[in-house]
């Protein structure tokens, strides 16, 4: 019984520590999805997102730090994936579309 209580305290402490760390301290660097821009550009769609000049020949990669709860929110609409080089990239053209966005059908 005592071993069970000690085990419970250890697991519970780890759970609380993990939750607090994940909720308040853990961050992920998420990059823009440049392939989306290129595809849009190739089909002749002008991108009017501040920070991206549609006249530029090559877009500059932008990135942003996301907290874990923000990533969780983005995952509810499958907003983040991993690129070939291992970086986390947005599934949407603009990173700002990932924060506070409503769900979409799966």
């Amino acid at each position, binding site marked *: 019984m005592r071993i069970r209580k000690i085990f419970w305290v250890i*697991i519970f402490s780890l759970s*609380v520590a993990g939750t607090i760390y994940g909720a308040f301290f853990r961050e992920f660097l998420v990059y823009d999805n440049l392939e989306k821009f290129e595809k849009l550009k190739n089909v002749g769609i002008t991108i009017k997102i501040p920070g991206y000049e549609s006249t530029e020949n090559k877009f500059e990669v932008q990135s942003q730090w996301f907290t*874990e*709860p923000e990533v*969780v929110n983005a*995952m*509810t609409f499958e907003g983040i994936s991993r690129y070939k080089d291992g970086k986390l990239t947005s599934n949407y053209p603009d990173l700002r579309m990932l924060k506070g966005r409503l*769900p979409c059908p*799966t």
Partner: protein
Amino acid sequence: MEKLRLKVQLAFAALFNIGLFQWHNICFPVLNCHSCPTSIFACPMGILGQFAGIGLIPLTVIGLMAIAGLTIGRFLCGWACPFGFVQELLYKIPYLKFNIPSWTRFIKYGVFAGLVVAVPIYLTPESSLYFCRLCPVGTIESAIPWAIINGTTNPGHLALRLAILFSIIILAMGHRRFFCKVLCPLGACLSVFNRFALVFPERQETCSECGSCNRLCPMETTPHPKDFGVFVKKPEECISCLDCREKCPTHAVKLWG
């Protein structure tokens, strides 16, 4: 107690899908699809699968599930899960009732390991085998509403989801909480912690060992004389519905384990 529980379940089902606000950065440990247009919280199974797909571990999701499991065990399955509530109602429909073999309860661990974790890692979360693509809760709360609102681009997959949903409805009409016992991956996760939960039904010395708690148990657990909760076999299945506490002739079951 059963009427009170149904009212609480109804209240939670409404609360999770009231649509007045959205806290999708928080996972509440019940199976409630976050793709529902009016959902409040994120589904832990959906988030686990999505994180698995990009090779990350969601600490907040696992931490919250562990905290819930270590404190109240599968209490949420019995009192808060909307799909558990739906299954309780389905079982009240007069229909052919049947038993299922005991070993079938292990299938849900395979569902969790296979469809929630392995498929996103080794295939992708977009795979049609990923749990969210087959989940009956997702079909009710997300696939059907969105198909009505926007139409569907994949009628074949929608038909598969509907077939799974109707199969589970038929099975839940014949066997109480069929999905919870056999298929629910969240139930599998919480049941791991259930043995260590703080709040757990426990038998007292006044027990006359009549076995009524065993016969009434919706999760088909087996009574235990002392110590480890009420049940010696399948204690991980106990959803703290407290039917045993209500029906016990000697009032020997108390909730705080």
